[in-house]
């Protein structure tokens, strides 16, 4: 068996644990800045109750004050601290967006995986339902839900999630099909792997990069959508601090006291932009590995 031994004899290029999967040097400045900004925003949102100098819902001073030492961004028309309301608003908007994307992505992943792996009539039925979901216009559904159940943040989130998941189901189903036709999927089936384990070990890691990238790019868009809906009065009821609602309320003072509307608007802008950049960064990190 001379032909078998030499290969085993010491010149194997084994690269044990070589190459970390995440190589930060691949990121450009903008992507890094986006990821840092997202991290900072998350910390700020979590720590809002500790950072905020005033109660966001209470009148804490004279109305319509200009920015000063005690009110960093001044006060609004009923004397609430704009800076504190902005911190709490960021918290609400950011975590709402995360919740919708998280739930939508999970549900979409489930539907996409089942459709992609099972194929056949299961695929057809699930994808027609998905198409129906995609055809529903998000804001209209949100308005309908608000009318039916009364405007509340939770109702809006439910309405948005209902129209949000089909997009993920579509994407994941396509990626799953691409993984399933690879020989490694057949090989795993022949190795006796089936059902949940087959999906978990041999399919999900292959679709995860796409899912993460879609979700992170999606966050920016979702923040804008949610802000738009609460701008229309379809979010949390009036006194609760919420970025879109704050912008909406401050609109009438836009020319006299611009910070009331501009502060939340700028935060929305930064959040959406940072989420997009961070999404690009994640994509660069996960590609080709």
């Amino acid at each position, binding site marked *: *068996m001379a032909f078998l031994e*030499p290969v085993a004899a010491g*010149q194997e290029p*084994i690269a044990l644990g070589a190459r970390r999967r995440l190589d930060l040097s691949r990121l450009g400045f903008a992507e890094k800045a986006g990821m840092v900004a997202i991290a900072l925003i998350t910390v700020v949102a979590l720590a809002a109750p500790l950072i905020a100098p005033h109660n966001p819902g209470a009148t804490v001073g004279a109305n319509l004050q200009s920015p000063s030492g005690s009110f960093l961004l001044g006060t609004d028309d009923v004397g609430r601290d704009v800076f504190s309301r902005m911190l709490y608003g960021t918290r609400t908007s950011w975590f709402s967006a995360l919740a919708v994307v998280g739930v939508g992505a999970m549900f979409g992943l489930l539907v996409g995986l089942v459709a992609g792996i099972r194929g056949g009539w299961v695929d057809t039925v699930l994808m027609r339902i998905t198409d129906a979901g995609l055809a529903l216009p998000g804001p209209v559904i949100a308005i309908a839900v608000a009318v039916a159940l009364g405007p509340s943040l939770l109702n809006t989130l439910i309405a948005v999630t209902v129209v949000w998941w089909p997009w993920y189901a579509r994407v994941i189903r396509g990626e799953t099909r691409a993984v399933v036709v690879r020989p*490694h999927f*057949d*090989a795993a089936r*022949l190795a006796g*792997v089936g059902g949940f384990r087959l999906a978990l070990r041999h399919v999900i*890691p292959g679709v995860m990069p796409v899912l993460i990238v879609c979700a992170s790019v999606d966050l920016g868009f979702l923040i804008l959508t949610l802000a738009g809906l609460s701008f229309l009065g379809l979010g949390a009821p009036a006194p609760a601090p919420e970025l879109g609602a704050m912008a909406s309320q401050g609109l009438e003072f836009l020319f006299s006291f611009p910070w009331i509307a501009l502060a939340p608007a700028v935060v929305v802008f930064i959040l959406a932009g940072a989420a997009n950049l961070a999404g690009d960064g994640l994509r660069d990190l996960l590609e080709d590995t």
Partner: protein
Amino acid sequence: MAKSTQATRKRDQPEPGGDRVSARVRGLDARFANGVHALRRVDLELRRGEILGLVGESGSGKTLLGLSLLGLAPPEAELTGGAWLADTEMVAASQETRRIARREHAGAVFQDPMTSLNPTMKVGRQVAEAAGSVDEAEELLGQVGIPDPDRRIKQYPHELSGGLRQRAMIAMAIARNPSVIILDEPTTALDVTLQRGILALLQQLRDELGAAMLFITHDLAVAAEVADRVAVMYAGRIAESGDPGEVFHHPCHPYTSGLLNSRLALAGLVSAGEVATLPGEPPDPRALPPGCPFEPRCAFAEPACTQELPPLVSAPRHGGADACIRSEEIADQLVPRLDPATSTGVPAAASPASKGGGAPAAALSLERISKEFHARRQHHLAVDDVSLELAAGGALGLVGESGCGKTTLLRIAVGLEDADSGEVRLGAGGAPQMVFQDAGASLTPWLSVYQLLDERLRGEGLESSAREQRIRETLALVGLRPEIANARPHELSGGQRQRVAMARSVIVPPALLACDEPTSALDVSLAATVINLLHRLRRELGVAILFVTHDLAVARAVADDVAIMDGGRIVERGPSEQVLRNPRSDEARRLVEAVPTMERAWHS
């Protein structure tokens, strides 16, 4: 020696007084920024009216050599030396000069015509871009042997078969009457019968056009068949060159001899287990040894071999040249020793199961299997009422052209596909396993070798230490070190991936191992190793093997019996040797004729 050199030169002349060099490289050297030294001061001449076969394993630098001649080497490659296409030096030339030289003098055909052709453009228009007008395109398509060219020019690339697509590519390559045509693995993606047609076409075009062709291939037998002169490349150097008949019958470089033995072992002409095929793997192109690059794998190496790069000098046993400092002494030992028992080709089937007395149980029996595919209201009967039996521990080659239904039948046999009608019965033992054509793709990329092997053991009810022991043993069985268990597939070489895939398929010994063209995409030395491994698995584990291939010669190397498939039916079945020597059906005869001539020459 001088005399024989002269004789060869005469033979090499394409026509009287026409010993004109159409293209040549001088001292061509290529390095990449990551340290890969891809070409090392290569000298090569391409003469008018000849087909030069450039043979080498993947990574030997043969493709880069072809691209450099076309002025298409990737910009990251740092080239020095010279590459002349007609009279233009392509290494130092500006992009514009290179483009003009390419347009005037060169044509190119690559491996995969589907990616080289624009899928959104009709074939006629695409060829017309090179030819000038659609009428000329039609004429060209006729010239390259495409039937009904007037109909074909109106079709899109996906409507053409693989063979016709490659012919369309050739039509584009010859459209401007180039003096040099670079063909990079033009037949590798085709089955043997289509390959035979393309090779004949190339020879015909060489005679008609008088162009010089550089035929790049990893397949020795193909080069032997088509080329007027061959050059064998190894680790960025020419190892040996000369007349193919002489080089392959009297190799003077141990690498050529190793390749040859691999190919002959692959064709079942030397008994694989006894002849040392090429051991080890090619050297890392980032850290090439200072001396002969083949020295680490060479059975004849001596200290002098590690001193400096051996130059290419006149060969002792033929009119060409070789780059081995010991070729004078060792050439006599390099001639392949054919198996005296070639009448069987296969090492006598010694399957434990069949030795055990009594009638062996069947590892697989297929009864009246049919399978139809539906696509856009078209029905395609892939498998048509096929019955088949494979004895435990036996080996059967399922041979046919692309689209004959052999892969579908294989997938039905292992249970990856359901038959529309008929019955599949499997013998006792582990669940059937399969070795895929692309072994790398059959390993889940994000799992480690250990995880992949361990997964297969889950149903066995073993403790983790027993499982680890089993994994070690199986890795050893396929010739891998245990440390490899921690690696992921992308960290492995092609050969290691193939071995891991095999380890997974036999770690729980299956009653049936189905192989779907496991050698067709591999370099010959690797392919021969795979065949050796299959023999070993069969011998030591008593696994029955169902081997699908389009190459009858390879089927014989693996299997005692072959079944010829055509149009979803089995048209002939019999002992491999008998079918190869004396085919009864037209389909079998066609396949036998497609076996490369080199092997038929060796065989007779």
